[in-house]
C-alpha cells in the first residue's frame, strides 16, 4: 500500500517539473535544437551500434570485406600506376595507395549510408517523432569501426615496408574526422533531397567512381599539379577532399604536402559544408513525414 502511494507521488512530482513543449510552424530563422538532440543521445548510440552489430553479425564477410576492399583496391592501383605507368612516389606505392583508399573509402561509405538513411528508415520517419538528423549522423560510428580495422592493417604495412613512425601521426585522427565531417555534410544534403527524389541513389555511385580518379587517391596532389597544365588546377583546389587526403597522407608517412594553405582552407571548407548540410536538412525536415 505504502509503496503504491510512493509510486503515485513520484509520478506526480515528475509531472510537475516537466517542461512545456510548444508545437508550431517552424520559423525560418530557427536552427538545430541542440537540447533536444542531447535528450535523444541514447538513440544516436543505439542506432549507431545497430548498424555495426548487424553488419558484423550477419556475415563473417563483414569484417573480411572491410579488410580486403582497400587491400584489393590498393593492389590494383599498384599494378596500374606503379608497375605499368611507373608513377614516381616518395614512399613505397602500396601503402601510399592503401592510405589513400582508407581515407577515400571512409568518405564514400559515410556519404552513401548517410544519403540512404532517410529512405531506408521510412517507417520510423513517418510514424515517430525524433530528431531526424540522428539518422545521417549515426552512420559515422560504423565508418569509424571500419577505420579502426583498416588502421590495424596499415600499421602492419608500415612494419612490412619499414616506414618510420613520425610525430605527425597524432594528427591523423584530425584529418579523418574532417573527412567524416565533410562526408556527413554532403550526406545531410543528399539524404534530404532523396526523400523526394529517389534517383539520387543511382547518381551517387557514378560520382563516387569518378571521384576515385579525380581525387588524389592513387597519386599525390603535388605530382598531379606538376604534371598537368595549370588550367586543371582549380579542379583539384575546389575539391575539399584533395587537401584533406594530402594532409592525411602526410600525417601517416611524412609525404610532401602540396600547399598548407590549401589544406587549411579544405578543413574550413569541410566545416562550412557540414554547417550548410545541417541547415539545409533542418529546413527540409518538416516536410519529410508528409513527402516520404
Amino acid at each position, binding site marked *: 500500500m505504502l509503496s503504491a502511494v510512493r509510486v503515485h507521488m513520484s509520478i506526480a512530482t515528475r509531472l510537475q517539473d516537466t517542461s512545456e513543449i510548444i*508545437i508550431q510552424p517552424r520559423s525560418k530563422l530557427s536552427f538545430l535544437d541542440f537540447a533536444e538532440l542531447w535528450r535523444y543521445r541514447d538513440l544516436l548510440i543505439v542506432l549507431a551500434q545497430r548498424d555495426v552489430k548487424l553488419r558484423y553479425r550477419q556475415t563473417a564477410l563483414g569484417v573480411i570485406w572491410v579488410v580486403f576492399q582497400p587491400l584489393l583496391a590498393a593492389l590494383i592501383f599498384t599494378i596500374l600506376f606503379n608497375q605499368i605507368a611507373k608513377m614516381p612516389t616518395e614512399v613505397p606505392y602500396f601503402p601510399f595507395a592503401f592510405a589513400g583508399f582508407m581515407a577515400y573509402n571512409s568518405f564514400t561509405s559515410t556519404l552513401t549510408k548517410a544519403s540512404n538513411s532517410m529512405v531506408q528508415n521510412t517507417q520510423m520517419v513517418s510514424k515517430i*517523432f525524433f530528431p531526424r538528423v540522428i539518422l545521417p549522423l549515426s552512420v559515422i560510428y560504423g565508418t569509424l569501426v571500419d577505420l579502426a580495422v583498416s588502421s590495424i592493417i596499415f600499421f602492419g604495412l608500415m612494419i612490412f615496408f619499414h616506414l618510420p613512425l613520425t610525430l605527425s601521426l597524432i594528427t591523423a585522427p584530425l584529418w579523418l574526422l574532417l573527412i567524416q565531417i565533410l562526408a556527413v555534410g554532403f550526406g545531410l544534403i543528399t539524404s534530404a533531397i532523396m526523400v523526394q527524389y*529517389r534517383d539520387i541513389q543511382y547518381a551517387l555511385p557514378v560520382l563516387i567512381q569518378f571521384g576515385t580518379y579525380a581525387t588524389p587517391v592513387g597519386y599525390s596532389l603535388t605530382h598531379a599539379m606538376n604534371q598537368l597544365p595549370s588550367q586543371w588546377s582549380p579542379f583539384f583546389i575546389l575539391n575539399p577532399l584533395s587537401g584533406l587526403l594530402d594532409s592525411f597522407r602526410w600525417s601517416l608517412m611524412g609525404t610532401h604536402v602540396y600547399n598548407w594553405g590549401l589544406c587549411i582552407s579544405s578543413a574550413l571548407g569541410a566545416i562550412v559544408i557540414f554547417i550548410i548540410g545541417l541547415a539545409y536538412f533542418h529546413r527540409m525536415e518538416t516536410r519529410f513525414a508528409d513527402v516520404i
Partner: protein
Amino acid sequence: MSSDTVISARDISKAYTIAHQDHHHTTAREALLHRLRHPFEGPRSEEFWALSNVNFDIQRGDVVGILGRNGAGKSTLLKILSRITTPTTGTVRLKGRVGSLLEVGTGFHPELTGRENIYMNGAILGMTRKEIQRQFDEIVAFAGSQVEGHLDTPVKRYSSGMYVRLAFGVAANLESEILIIDEVLAVGDGEFQKKCLGKMHNVAESGRTVLFVSHNMGAVNALCNRGLFLERGTVKRVGVVSEIIEEYMATSDSQEGIRYWNDDINAPGDDRVILRSLQVNNINGNVISTVGSGEPFDIRISYEIRQPMPHFRMAFFLMCSDGSTAFFTSDAQIKEWQNKTREPGIYESICHIPANLLNEGKYGIMIKADIPMVVNIIWDQDSSVTFNVERTNFNGEPIERVAGAVCPVLPWEIIFNKKK
C-alpha cells in the same frame, strides 16, 4: 493555460499540397526534364486542408476518445500532437512528454534479439537507456512468458503474436505524461487485449492523459471519459464521451441496405484487398433495408483480393444503434478456408443470418478484413451499411413487441399435470 490543462490546441491548421498527376515527380530527372521543357510554367498544385482552425483543451488525467470518419483529420491531428509533422498554422502547447503508439514495433529489426530490440525500440520512442533498464522487467513481464524465454533469440524467429506482444510491451511501458494510442488494441487475442486495456486504465489513473483513436465504440465508451468529434478537418464537438458517441452514430453517413464502390479511390481497402460492395439481401436475393425479425436474411460482402493473402478472413461487427456490438462473426468459421491462402481474384463472403435472432431496431454492419492478430486491412465506419429490423413474423405480419437485444425462438417445453 490553466495548470491542469496538458494539451491546448489553438487554431491548428494543416495544409497538404497535392501536385497534379502530370506534375508529380518522384525522380530528380523527371523534375529537371519537366523544368527544361516548360521553363515558364508556374507551379500548378492544389492545397488540401486536412485540418482547419482546430481548437481544444485537454485536462490532466482525461482519457479522450477521438472520433471521426476516414479523412476527418484524425491521423493528421495525431501526427501533429506526436510531433511527426508540424502544423501549417496555429500552436499546440503540451505539458510533458508525448508517447505515441501510432505504429507498434517501429524500428524493430528482425536480425536483432528480443533484448536488443527492446533497447532499440525504447530509444526510438524517446526513452533513455536508464529508463529502459528500469522498465525492462516490466516490459518482459507484459510481453508474456513465451517472449521471456526467447529474449536472446532474433525476433525473426518469433511468431507474429510474440512480436506484437513484445512491441506493445515496450510502448505500453513508456514513461510519458501523454499517451496517444491508435487502433493498436485491434491486434492480439482477447487475453492480451484485456491486458492492454488494463494498462490504459492504469495510465489514466496515475494522472496521465490518454488520447485514444478507435472505431470500436464499445472500447471508446468503456475507457474514455471525454470525446472529441472531428468532421472534415474541424472539431464538431468536444464533451462527455457518451454524448459524443451518440452524435457520431447519429451523423453516420452509412447507407441503408446496400453500398457499392466502383472506383478504387473511395473504396475501403488498399492494394491488398479492396471492397466492392456490401449488401443486405432477403432470401430471394433482393436488396432490402428493412427485414422482419421472423425472416432469415443474408449479409453479402464482395471484395477483390489483389495479392495472395495467407490466413486472411472477412468479418463484420453487427452494431446496435447505441454503438455497442451485437456480435462479431467471420468467414474463418468455414473449416476449409481457415488456413488457405486466398489467391488474387473476386470473392463473395455471405453470412446467413437465421430468423428470430435480432430484435427490432436499427443495426449497422461494420466490415473488418484482416489477418487475425497480425494486421487489419479494412476496419472503419466508412464501409458500413445499416438496416432495420421490424417485429414481424415470417409472412411480414406484425407481432407482439418484446424487450431485449435478441428475440430468439428457443426450444420450450411445457409439462402439464392435471390436478388429481
